[in-house]
């Protein structure tokens, strides 16, 4: 009975581990780019004038796209 429980526990652990590895490695997340984008937008929203906010926001977008570009071809 004890052996069965240990066997079940080991099997369940293998299953959970396998599933965890499979799901976490299936799609690479570019959280780094997104996080920088969010920070950049936050900074842009604190600009004094409307035009300054618009220009800063546009720069954030370009930075974000460039970050993804470097991730695809540069790493």
């Amino acid at each position, binding site marked *: 009975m004890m052996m*069965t429980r240990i*066997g*079940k526990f080991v*099997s*369940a652990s*293998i*299953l959970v581990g*396998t*599933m965890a590895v*499979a799901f976490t*490695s*299936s*799609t*690479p*997340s*570019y959280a780094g*780019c*997104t996080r920088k984008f969010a920070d950049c937008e936050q900074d842009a929203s604190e600009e004094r004038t409307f035009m300054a906010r618009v220009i800063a926001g*546009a720069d954030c*977008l*370009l930075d*974000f*796209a*460039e970050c*993804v*570009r*470097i*991730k*695809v*071809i*540069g*790493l």
Partner: protein
Amino acid sequence: MRSAVTGRCFAYFFMIMVTRIYRYTLSFLPPLVACFLIGCGSDTPAPSSEPGSLIPALAHVAVLTRFSGQEAQDAFAELGALGGRLLTRTGVQLLGAKSKLLLDLDLKGTRPEPLVVTRLEGVADRVKLGGLAVTPDGRLWTVYGRTELARISAQGEVRAVEQLPFSAYAVYSWRETLLAQVARSRAGESPFMGRTGAGGWQSVGPLKTRKHASNRESLLWNTAHCGASRADLLPCWFLLGEPSVVLVDTDGNWTACPLALPAGAGGRVSDTGNVYPISFRDLFVSEKGEIIALTDTGAGDAHRGRFLGRYSLDGTLLASIRLNQGARQVLDVLRDKVTLLLRDDGVGEVTLP
């Protein structure tokens, strides 16, 4: 009476055994099912009835010892994200996007020192350098902080000399023409601007910016890039989405090349719920006039830069292999040997049949 008791005992014992065997088997069932569903990480090629979906053979990359010394390893590690790449007569130059480093690799073994490291000066902190180009006078150029064109002197001094009339991510050179990859172009316009000699910048090429609902989507989907070439054709393409490859010839004429990704190749990037397919990570046209394509074998870090394909100029896949380690770029191609910049900061060589 006695036989009846014995029979019951046997039946009881038999039931317990069956239950235990059943439970024991059940305990192994979930991992077996999981293995069956998601694969157990085997490198053995899976058989397939369709020739187009055959998983290519696994090839081992031979690490080049002349680039495996401590100094070279440190230089590659410091290089970080690649800003630009330029082929030379004997090898290739690599520019760091943020590391202020220019590496000159001698791939043909004609120099006593295989790697020359130049530390760039005059680059402000947090400014990215994009692309590496050379003009017929031998001067090196890069995009400085997206808005300026900068010259790189032989001593490694970077000086911004010209304000660009557009935002650009990178600059490439193709014979006597400078090609700039525009960061933001209107829908239906080319993502490339070209300039020959002292002329002005003008929109070039048949690639057209695709329209999307939001600025963010539009910027991502329309990010283009150009590879390298030892022949008379330079390959350029959109990094995400359908692999729309175009080739520029020496007269500046552009032709579309239907370069399809075979089944099982191609990666994915995800961003806040959206998933974008990667077309190619790098393209290289060899002296023989064949296109060498580097891409992924699937989604995830383990698959990154591990598919290498050889295509004819009409887009037919001639040969393909899976690499036993990921590569970042195709550095050069000589006959059937492909030299690669590896993901773990080394240089390797592989034979492509």
